């Protein structure tokens, strides 16, 4: 994912350093977070996309140090989103193995009954 693509021999050698921008990881994990972590994991995912987008912008503006900072932040937020998504995925697997939606609805019904008694 962060391996730079091979430079075609016809293109002139680039002097700008290749800084991983983590954009693909950021986008894919944000989509996965919508599916498995609800929107809770999507907010750090958007932060990751924003920092990933800053890498190339800053590099183009000649700010190499800034690009490295954005790259490291993008990586950090990608990991946060990945962690949340893995937690969500684990919960989803547990949920399906624990009896699925019918069991869940019964549980929620019981919870509502308890709340009604308390009021």
């Amino acid at each position, binding site marked *: 994912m962060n391996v730079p*693509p091979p430079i*075609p021999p016809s*293109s002139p050698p680039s002097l700008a350093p290749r800084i991983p921008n983590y*954009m693909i990881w950021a986008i894919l994990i944000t989509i996965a977070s*919508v599916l*498995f*972590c*609800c*929107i*809770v994991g*999507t*907010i750090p995912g*958007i*932060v990751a*996309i*924003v920092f990933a*987008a800053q890498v*190339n*912008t800053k590099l183009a503006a000649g700010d190499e140090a800034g690009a490295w900072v954005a790259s490291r932040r993008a990586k950090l937020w990608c990991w946060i989103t990945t962690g949340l998504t893995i*937690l*969500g995925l684990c*919960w*989803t697997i547990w*949920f*399906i193995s624990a009896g*699925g*939606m019918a069991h*869940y*609805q019964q549980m929620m019904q019981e*919870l509502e009954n308890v709340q009604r008694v308390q009021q």
Partner: protein
Amino acid sequence: MNAIAPRTSSLAFDMRTAVVGAAAVLTLLGAAVLWVFQPESLWPCVFHAITGLHCPGCGLTRMLHALVHGDVARAWSMNPLAMIALPLLAAMLAQWGLARPMLPAWFDRYAHDGRVWIVALLAFGVLRNLPMFAWMAPG
């Protein structure tokens, strides 16, 4: 993501084609799943299961299910924010994929600003749990 970056090399072009193609395939696949399965047979929201509150994404599966089955009113009632965001994201993807501007420039700036999305998601997440904004909650 850069709003409209010019096509610089064939590599960049292949990248766009691949991303747009993957998005199209995933959309069709998702639509097929929701055409066959009921939302109740898929997994619910983790956040809702733990807290009992509606997260900004709650109702998303039911919304997409309703949309696949042509029930726009029900889709809107399940997740109004996603109903606004979905065509917007599709337009953003299309204009990036075609490298041709489709949204007005002033609007495009906001659409590509992550802060706007985060504020919108958080505000929507809070409001839909309040009784006076119950129309935002799924159910």
